[in-house]
């Protein structure tokens, strides 16, 4: 009984600490925005370095969706709607969610490990002793970069999945769906609200993953075990948070 009680209080304490940490990050954002070079470095590290995995995954997800969608639609003689099918599923759901899951695995874990190791090797203490606030110098730029990079990655994922190498390649080039129908149906059925909501979701997921990653890294025990635990829990907690947030956001966006 005492065990489960202390687990709950530990969790609540962790949540409280994470919230205060988020407040201090938000407080440091204006200062970080004044350092565009630092931001660019971090956008490169979390964004550009995640491109390959996003591009490849997007293509495969789009190809699979086209195969599965075609099989169902062709029975109803609605194979021309394949474009809408792929586009709606990708833009509304799979784009932001799968990108965020990949982002957590690729960039989130790297962030947590980097910050955890900086802590374990006294780099963060060293900065503090040089009168440099590590939240301003290290944490805030990484957080902003995550929030900024996620929507871009998600859009690239969607572009790959719907067009270029994904759904279009399979649906039009392989299965013979009419090229004009593929695009025009997307054009008429996909509204800008869908894209707005998709970008909103991505930004929220980006913020959640970055917050969890920098929190886990910054509060990791300064040992190799602590860093490995921080990396693991970043991926686990982020994945759960993404799926739960996706449900909440979708419920709000659902008309």
């Amino acid at each position: 009984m005492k065990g489960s009680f202390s687990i709950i209080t530990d969790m609540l304490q962790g949540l409280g600490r994470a919230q205060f940490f988020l407040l201090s990050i938000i407080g440091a954002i204006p200062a970080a925005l004044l350092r565009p070079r630092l931001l660019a470095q971090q956008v490169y590290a979390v964004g550009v370095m995640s491109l390959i995995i996003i591009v490849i995954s997007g293509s495969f997800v789009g190809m699979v969706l086209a195969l599965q969608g075609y099989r169902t639609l062709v029975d109803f003689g609605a194979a021309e709607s394949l474009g809408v099918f792929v586009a709606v599923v990708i833009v509304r759901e799979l784009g932001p969610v799968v990108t965020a899951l990949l982002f957590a695995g690729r960039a989130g874990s790297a962030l947590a490990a980097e910050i955890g190791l900086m802590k374990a090797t006294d780099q963060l203490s060293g900065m503090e002793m040089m009168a440099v606030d590590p939240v301003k110098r290290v944490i805030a730029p990484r957080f902003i970069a995550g929030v900024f990079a996620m929507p871009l990655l998600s859009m690239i994922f969607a572009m790959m999945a719907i067009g270029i190498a994904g759904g279009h390649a399979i649906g039009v080039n392989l299965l013979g769906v009419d090229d004009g129908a593929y695009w025009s149906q997307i054009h008429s059925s996909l509204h800008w609200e869908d894209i707005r909501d998709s970008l909103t979701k991505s930004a929220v997921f980006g913020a959640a993953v970055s917050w969890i990653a920098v929190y886990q890294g910054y509060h990791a025990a300064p040992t190799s075990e602590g860093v490995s635990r921080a990396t693991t829990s970043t991926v686990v907690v982020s994945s759960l948070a993404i799926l739960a947030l996706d449900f909440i956001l979708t419920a709000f966006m659902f008309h």
Partner: protein
Amino acid sequence: MTTNATADTALVRVRGLNFSHGPRVIYDGVDVDIPRGKVTAIMGPSGTGKTTLLRIIGGQWRPSSGTVEFDGVNVHTQRRKALYDLRKRMGMLFQNGALLTDLSVFENVAFPLREHTELPESMIRDLVLMKLEAVGLRGARDLYPSQLSGGMSRRVGLARAIALDPDLVMYDEPFTGQDPISMGVLMRLIRSLNDALGLTSIVVSHDVEEVLSISDHAYVIASGKVLASGTADSIRNSDSPYVQQFLRGQHDGPVAFHYKAVPYADDLLRKGAQR
């Protein structure tokens, strides 16, 4: 350098310091004075919280009670901004150098200058090269921390610690794990930088002979108390059996070789015991 009422006395004044780490009492009423312009050694066995003392002086950790004054200003009652201004006047050399691993040697030394000053690039370059020249690593400016030996990392850390021309430099175990040559290099550097730049230095160490040979003043701290303080010679001639055990590295004495345990015979004869 700022001069206050305490100008002729101690730069750092610790009074009645109490500090606990969880249930463990680390300091129990410690008074320490760090005289200006001198090299002061803080010695003691591992785990006595010598590093803790440096972190408390730097305001990173807060004592349970007691005061720490830096140049007449209480470190722990300052607001963040004022505390950061105080820290710009302190340099700290961490045990492993604590270099930023994603920056080159040059950029590591330039880091505090870039963060705290608006100096033009050409002046930053001159300053960084001056500091690196002082530690003999001007030629290593383009290396990355992973390419440096332990002793070199510490010298770069030292160049970085003096980049802002601080009043105080704190050395955390600078000699641990160094070969005799780089130990000698570090010892000479600590002494010569202190005298050439008019610094005040605190050297935390348990390498007794080495640290006593370069310091003007020394403290021996163990089990939360100051056991001895004074000049290097007075420490060497101390009549405290503990200090003598520490200086001579004797395996048994006031600090027992055996960890606290029940009598050996009882332990062996205990019947039916699992362990």
